[in-house]
């Protein structure tokens, strides 16, 4: 048992190491010193307090989107539609924030609930189509992504466009202060952590951690979590056990979509305080890699999100401080993602086999 836990920790760790080695080869071929590039990457993310602040800020939406993918996966569903659910959830809480001027004690929770309900309903569309007609959720969630992006693009360009806007990217007007999730630097400064006010890390990060615990509790300790896992593992036996798989599919997609919707909150309520067209840039898809690397385990998802947060932050620094062209940083990031996602699985199986043979 202990060994199994050890393996599940060791495997992703080795995968990351392997990914970085391959990344190093690519950097070397391009005529840069890999050690220097990696040093830059790390120095600007994990050696400074502000660097960590950015890392955790980057990790926040990834935690939600990783949880969304993982929860669907537990129910036997592959939710590729987190990206769309993010846009819908983000727009929903933005709409609430620009429409109602309320006290933060109401504004923040209701904003979160808006993101969850609308993200969840967006997920339910694919869930219903699967339950009712057997239409595959992978296809439908992908299609719903396009619709969600186009829909929010329309809304932010037309009825909700900020009047007199100068920014070339369309955006809504600013949220009322009651729906803004504050940054954490005042708190950190008070407890002696010297975080600059410019760091956008906000309380959404703690909400994300709270949801990790909540999702774990839900899956492991409640009747509905039990039913979701049962349907995910064996729909036929679940039916025999008196569980209605169609109902569970819809429930799973609602909850997964709700978590996806929450992944839009960090940007809207915690950072920009408005909805910016096309802001997510693939957070929902990175969530798939996060869930894979984290082995669908909430704690694993936190660590995987932090790793991707480091990569995002490091990419920025590499762009500024090294001669590697901007596009290349994305390439290296992609290599790392691929290796982490696939290599992790491969190494996990390898270690498992070694363990079995040594028995």
């Amino acid at each position, binding site marked *: 048992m202990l060994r199994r836990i050890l393996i599940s920790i060791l495997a992703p760790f080795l995968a990351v190491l392997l990914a970085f080695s391959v990344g190093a080869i690519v950097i070397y071929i391009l005529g840069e010193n890999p050690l220097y590039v990696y040093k830059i990457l790390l120095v600007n993310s994990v050696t400074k307090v502000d660097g960590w602040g950015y890392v955790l800020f980057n990790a926040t939406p990834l935690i939600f989107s990783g949880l969304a993918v993982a929860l669907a996966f537990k129910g036997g569903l592959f939710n590729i539609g987190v990206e769309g659910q993010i846009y819908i959830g983000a727009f929903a809480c933005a709409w609430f924030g620009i429409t109602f001027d309320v006290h933060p004690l109401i504004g923040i929770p209701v904003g979160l609930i808006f993101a969850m309900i609308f993200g969840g309903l967006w997920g339910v569309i694919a869930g219903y189509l699967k339950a009712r007609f057997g239409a595959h959720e992978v296809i439908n969630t992908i299609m719903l992504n396009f619709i969600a992006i186009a829909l929010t693009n329309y809304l932010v360009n037309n009825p909700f466009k900020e009047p007199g806007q100068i920014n070339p990217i369309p955006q809504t007007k600013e949220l009322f202060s009651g729906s803004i999730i504050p940054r954490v630097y005042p708190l950190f400064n008070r407890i002696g952590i010297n975080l600059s006010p410019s760091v956008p890390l906000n309380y959404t990060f703690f909400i994300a951690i709270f949801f990790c615990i909540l999702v774990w509790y839900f899956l492991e300790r409640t009747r509905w979590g039990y039913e979701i896992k*049962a349907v995910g593992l064996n729909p036929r036996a679940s039916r025999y056990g*008196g569980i209605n798989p169609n109902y569970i599919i819809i429930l799973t997609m609602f909850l997964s979509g709700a978590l996806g919707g929450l992944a839009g909150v960090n940007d809207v309520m915690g950072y920009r305080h408005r909805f910016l067209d096309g802001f997510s840039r693939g957070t929902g898809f990175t969530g798939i890699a996060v869930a894979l690397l984290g082995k669908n385990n909430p704690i694993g998802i936190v660590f995987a999100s932090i790793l991707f947060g480091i990569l995002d932050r490091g990419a920025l620094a590499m762009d500024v401080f090294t001669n590697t062209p901007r596009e290349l940083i994305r390439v290296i990031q992609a290599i790392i993602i691929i290796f982490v996602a696939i290599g992790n699985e491969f190494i996990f199986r390898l270690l498992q086999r070694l363990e079995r043979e040594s028995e």
Partner: protein
Amino acid sequence: MAEYILETRGITKHFPGVLANDSVDIKIREGEIHSIIGENGAGKTTLMNIIYGIIRPDRGEIFYKGKKVEISNPSVAIKLGIGMVHQHFMLVPPFTVWENIILGREVTKRGILDKDSVCSELKRLMKDYGLSVPLDEKVEDLSVGICQKVELIKLLYRGAELLILDEPTALLVPQETEELFEILDNLKRQGKTIIFISHKLKEVLRISDRITVMRRGKVVGELDGKEADEETLARLMIGKTLESQKLETYERGEETLRLEGIRLPPRLKNINLTLYKGEILGLAGIEGNGQRELLEIITGLLIPESGRIFYKNRELKHLDPRTLREIGIGFIPEDRQRTGLILDFTVAENIILGRHYKEPYTVRGRLNLPVIKKTATDIVKEYDIRTSTVDKYVRFLSGGNQQKVILGREFYSQPEILIASQPTRGLDIGATEMIHKLLLSARKKGMSILLYSSDLDEIMTLSDRIAVIYNGEIVGVLSPKEIDETTLGLYMTGARKD
């Protein structure tokens, strides 16, 4: 030295928590049919997997044709001439028979599969061994019996001399079993050696030259096939004598379940059946005559096109598994791994399945883990389920213990009606006996039991009445005291009808 084609010395294999093989010595003579029998978990399959190179032993040596060999993986075994037919077939369903046979040893001509030369060789093989299979049909369209023959030809095609058959009769109907035995006899005459794994004593006695008995990882006896008898074997296998089950007198109680005009084309035409308190109603029929559909309707997994079901004269409107369970019907499904259990759930999680949403297992939506664990521990103890803890995944339990998890779960809630489909299929004598006892004592306490089994012995000894299903209809309800198996067979094949 060459008297023995295969010999093992001191094979020992530990798995976490069990000693699967404990210093096992077996000797297989060339050209014999050698049965290895034992209960589930006795270590037969482990031993065969070691011989075939799937598992490495902790200690021990294997001699093949007098020479010590290291069988590190199945391809080494195949090269030596050892072939194995697994309990679950290793065939690719959408491939045709000949494609399956050559899989892994494809013959090509300029990169293209050379079907002509393959098929002519296969035809020669089939003729030599008196085995015939349709080479051009897809495996998914074939019956279990034919698939087995395909597996055998596959071994012969690869030049196997020693054939290991792991419980080959578990899924066969009696006619198919008889046919298999003829094939095996034929193979023996052609000089092949056969290791036959089973726990069905009648079959073993029918076919074996020699019999090795295993119990709890050890060899406990080696007998000559002609000298052995069922009782001796059973005693060796389970370490005690078998009690024969006797039916006590049967008093028909009140009506509990009544089916009227159940129709579900194409399989079910018109089913009328009544079940009474305190009886075992046996359902007999040849596979594919609608019994599976009928049982799935009563379980709530299938919805009939028309027809009515009454529980104590009250018509049931909502036939879904949860409602049916709530009114007191328990189910033992035919396919325990696919329907009865969630293999990647723990023993405890499986034990609450079906009642997991109710108190005491769930209180206000939260799972009550201490109660669940306690219930599971009680059931594990009461039904003698061999598992180290209730937190073990059911996947890692043996077939018999998996079935006991289902039985424990279904009996624990003391249902009034029990629908048992093939409850002892694939189980060893000890487990079968235990299940028979459970059914009989439940009947005595007044439970209504509908029992479907493809084992006619089981139906004949346990049932108070036998309903025969043929072509989607009940063609007769018989008393086992007044008929014999031949008469039953006439009803089952549609030759007779009431």
